[in-house]
């Protein structure tokens, strides 16, 4: 009996030998944009995205924000809806902080961007630490619903939040510029906040591990902009700790690695991360598939390899085919590789190219791939 797409992707994620390259596709940006603008291809009008991926013959990557929800105790959270912004104020016994989030469909689905970060100055450290200490994670029941919607067509791409603790501080709470200024000016306070954030994320993972999710994001969307000493100090030990925790429960650790990572590649093998997803090589970054393979070793599972711009009309069908065939040769013999896009089908991408990848896998992607 043949394996379902879900079984195939999970087997590949666990490093099991298959008969050909598996393919897990992500199309939510394309789907949400075109559905909202009523520009889905005639054939797919009224279809769900998983069904479209199934029709193209690929496995589905189904994104879900996080399997845990945060509840707060000992503070008041007031949300004001002021479209397109949501303003949130956190009132604690030791002071208040606020943030302003812009909601936009620029990336397809509704996504919030903090246009005003929660951390504004040194006085905010104890307040934010208080909020983190009074955050209680609970399982989000929406996860099970989303998971059953995907069924055997693919796997859920989520975790206990996608970002690592350091990223939550540098990207979500402070913003990059301020994080690095704070690290230079108030290193002890940044490190204290980091410890408190880690405790909170550990609690999230302890709750999330009870879900039946098999693969957990533990980091996402970082790049060389993360200073190497910062990566070594704040990222690697955390990745090691949480990977060991996941492994001890029979789960896998995954990173969403679609940024420019040339300078950080030498440290990837030290992280304990099992799967490098949304992997985006040249020309969207400066790194080749071969270089990533060398960096993560033979056992590291790479998921991706096709830069999203290859799906754009600026690349002809012939150029697309040639890229895919060349990529198969580059990754030969091809084990521990899941074909995917870095990181999404663009809004004006050609959905039929998913089916073309499936055809090319059948023609050229059977194991072991020979050059």
């Amino acid at each position, binding site marked *: 009996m043949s394996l379902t797409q879900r079984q195939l992707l999970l087997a590949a994620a666990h490093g099991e030998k298959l008969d050909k390259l598996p393919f897990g596709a992500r199309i939510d*940006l394309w789907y949400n*944009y075109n559905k909202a603008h009523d520009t889905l291809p005639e054939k797919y009008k009224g279809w769900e995205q998983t069904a479209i991926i199934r029709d193209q013959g690929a496995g589905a990557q189904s994104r879900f924000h996080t399997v845990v929800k945060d509840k707060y105790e000992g503070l008041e959270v007031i949300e004001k809806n002021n479209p397109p912004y949501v303003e949130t104020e956190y009132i604690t016994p030791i002071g208040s902080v606020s943030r302003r989030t812009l909601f*936009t469909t*620029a990336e*397809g689905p509704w996504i919030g961007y903090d*246009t005003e970060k929660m951390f504004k100055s040194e006085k905010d450290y104890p307040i934010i630490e208080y909020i983190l200490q009074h955050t209680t994670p609970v399982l989000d029941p929406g996860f099970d619903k989303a998971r059953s919607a995907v069924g055997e067509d693919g796997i859920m791409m989520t975790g206990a939040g996608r970002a690592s603790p350091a990223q939550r501080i540098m990207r979500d709470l402070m913003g990059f510029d301020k994080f690095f200024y704070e690290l230079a000016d108030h290193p002890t306070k940044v490190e204290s906040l980091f410890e408190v954030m880690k405790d909170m994320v550990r609690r999230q993972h302890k709750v999330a591990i009870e879900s039946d999710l098999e693969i957990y994001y533990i980091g996402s969307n970082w790049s060389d902009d993360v200073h190497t000493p910062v990566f070594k100090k704040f990222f690697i030990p955390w990745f090691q700790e949480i990977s060991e925790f996941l492994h001890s429960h029979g789960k896998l650790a995954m990173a969403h690695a679609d940024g420019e990572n040339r*300078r950080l590649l030498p440290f990837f093998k030290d992280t304990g991360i099992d799967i490098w997803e949304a992997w985006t090589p040249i020309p969207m970054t400066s790194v080749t598939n071969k270089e990533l393979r060398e960096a993560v070793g033979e056992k590291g599972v790479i998921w991706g390899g096709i830069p999203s*711009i290859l799906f754009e009309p600026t690349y002809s069908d012939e150029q697309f085919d040639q890229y895919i065939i060349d990529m198969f040769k580059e990754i030969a013999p091809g084990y521990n590789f899941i074909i995917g896009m870095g990181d999404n089908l663009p809004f004006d991408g050609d959905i039929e190219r998913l089916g073309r990848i499936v055809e090319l896998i059948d023609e050229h992607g059977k194991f072991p791939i020979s050059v």
Partner: protein
Amino acid sequence: MSDHSLLSQAVIEGKGDQTAELATAMLNSGTKPQDIISQILQPSMNTVGEKFSSGEFFLPDMLLAARAMNNALAILKPLLDSSGMPTLGKVVIGTVKGDIHDIGKNIVATFVRGVGFEVIDLGEDITDEKFIEAVKENNADILGLCAMLTTTMPSIGSVIKALETAGIRSKVKVIVGGAPVTKDYAVHIGADAYAHDGGEAARVCKELLTAKEAG
């Protein structure tokens, strides 16, 4: 070590307080503020850009160096004579319509400003019309366009077309960048140049200016 070298080293090492102290000492010893800026601060930021591009420096090194330079500029700028701030040229920069990502654009602006350009940062989610208006108003030498999403990438081409329609395309060089943008794409949409990061953007802007001046 001379004050000149010490100030340069303080900027490169991102030592903000020291930079301000040394700039003040040089002023007190009679050095003109214009000279401190054009002969020490801007060349020091060039060095930072080169170290970033070569892989020796990382983003935070550049951020701290730029902040250190700004500490000195805060003291020097009010003392500039009528010739004003020494600049290489004017760069208008912004993230295109529909795109509110600012990190990459801010990094590029910091680098380009650091090496001596006057940067007019329009911000994020900028319409074609606003870009055209700013290029005209500022008589810009270079227009920097950033897109971080495949959904907003086509807006770069739209701005370039709008420059043509407004009849000012030949008056301004266009440099583009952002996560999904590639060199091939830059050529495809008719940009003059592409930059992968802030260090490269600063170098390319100087090349574009030279090309523009050469006619």
